[in-house]
């Protein structure tokens, strides 16, 4: 399905804003710096376009604002709601920490349990379960802030994230082509 144009519009708006801010602040940037700035502003713009309704966007914003150098950029892109968004993201981070410690505890218990049953026959269902589990882990690592989500919310976040990524890729591609054509002239 096509990402809605409203999403693209918002993303573009915020992204350009961020880029302008970047370019105005520093004069000479290396290639990598530029690339980072572009990608960062694109990501943050994408996340803010979601207005902190989804977990991944909040996680992304909080990760980005952890870095001091990015803070102003983030704030600029976020705009007026930056404060509330930040607060939401911070709370999410705290929740994550709590969940993480709980999960570590749970895992240590389950490992002990698993060892007992390892002698039994390996069934197809257990193999399948293991596969699924592994893959969910990978997916969790891909989605920003996915470490603390339940399986169900992970899938929902993935859905949203895929849509946003698609919109982001579309807009960036067009911009890149346009600039390329422009330079060609």
């Amino acid at each position, binding site marked *: 399905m096509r990402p809605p144009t409203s999403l693209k519009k918002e993303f573009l708006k915020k992204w350009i804003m961020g880029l*302008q801010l970047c370019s105005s602040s520093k004069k000479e940037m290396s290639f990598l710096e530029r690339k980072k700035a572009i990608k960062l502003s694109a990501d943050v713009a994408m996340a803010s376009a979601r207005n902190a309704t989804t977990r991944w966007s909040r996680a992304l914003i909080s990760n980005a604002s952890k870095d001091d150098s990015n803070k102003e950029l983030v704030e600029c892109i976020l705009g007026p709601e930056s404060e509330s968004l930040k607060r939401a993201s911070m709370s999410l981070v705290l929740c994550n920490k709590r969940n993480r410690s709980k999960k570590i505890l749970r895992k240590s218990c389950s490992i002990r349990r698993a060892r007992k049953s390892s002698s039994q026959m390996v069934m197809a269902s257990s193999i399948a379960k293991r596969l699924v589990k592994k*893959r969910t882990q990978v997916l969790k690592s891909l989605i920003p802030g996915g470490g603390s989500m339940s399986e169900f919310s992970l899938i*929902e976040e993935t859905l949203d994230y*895929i849509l946003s990524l698609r919109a*982001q890729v579309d807009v960036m591609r067009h911009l890149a*082509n346009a600039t390329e054509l422009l330079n060609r002239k």
Partner: protein
Amino acid sequence: MMNMASPEMLHCLSTSGNVAGNGTDMTVFERQRVRMKWQQEQFQQQQQQQQQSYFGGNEFSMFSMGGQVGQAQQFHGLINGDSAGVGDLLGRAVKADPGLENVWPEFGKLTMPGTGFNVENAGFESAGILNCSGFEMNHTTSRTSSCPLAAAEAKVRESVLPEKIASAVGRESFKKRKADKVQSPKVVAEEETKDKRIKGYAEDGESKITEANNNKNSTTTTTTTATTTTTNNNNRETSADTSKVSEVQKPDYIHVRARRGQATDSHSLAERVRREKISERMKYLQDLVPGCNKITGKAGMLDEIINYVQSLQRQVEFLSMKLAAVNPRLDFNIDNFLAKEVFPACAANFPTIGMSSEMTNPSYLHYDPIQQVATCGVEMGINPAEIALRRTISAPVSIPDTFLDSCFTQIQPSSTWDADLPNLYGPEFHQGRLMSFPSQAAFTGPIDASNLKMEM
């Protein structure tokens, strides 16, 4: 047992044509068929009474409920649940998708296709049953294809105690036929749950069989969130192939019918509800991720999803690198776009660079007729919006939303693709270019090399 010798029943029995086997003996099978006919009549009577405010499938539920009600009223405690069981078999409610967010409006109602499984399989004179419009049970045909057997074992139908309808708490209904299971339990569960899109989660609360229950009374609802309500009944030993139906009557309760032979405690029921939710979401993901249609397993699907997300992320990285390479100074100055006349058609409409954004609207309106083609142009046509955007940004003016709308929704005649191809399209620059837009839809692919070559 057969004290229900009402005249209509006997009449039905005598007129029943497809009774297999004995003509005079009131085998359980025949009794069931008689009951079915009885239910049909009841249903037809009640059909006018009850409001058809649900989707077509609800007629089914109405029917089954009506049948049940009729039975309950008439044959207290004497009714064996055969017909009820069959009614329930038929009574697959339609699941309407709650439509998660506005982002996915098209994941709308999912109607369960269900065709005349009864006619062929059960041999019932259930023509009346099939009157339900738009109600199919295709997913159940696989399971109910063994319905002749089901009919045979209809005798062992669950015991329908009308009282139980009112007090259904965690009762199980129908057994899942082991014969149908050829896949791994997980896949089967998925398939089943996928087939049973009878979840009325959240908003829309589909009408399900228990909707009809509601008509009777809401005592069926219990306080647990995963209560099982059986429209007809509860039984532990029935043999029907029906699978479970879960619905949302009111926002608080999710009604789930447990499968036969499975635990009825709230934990496993909640677990099942959870699994159904997950598989429902996975279905959406299937539509979203290209190439996922063939894969049915959860692990395979997850694999595809992971690959897709990774590829999208890589694309973002690559594009940002490309942008960094193309822009030595990170200045996305839109004025350049106009100055260099990248959009010659636009240039005609933008005589001055400093034109206010409002004035550009009419120029875009000129291309309204081609809007249908613009659907593909929406993706490509970000450029004029970019132009306007940057222009307004460099001159600190707030971006009027209307302008953006017109930009994004209309075909972009000033697409950069065409910028260098006036010679190709000849004098009919505007018309020809716009017409050829669809052909350029392919340019939106991730590989822009071909596009660039064209402009050489």
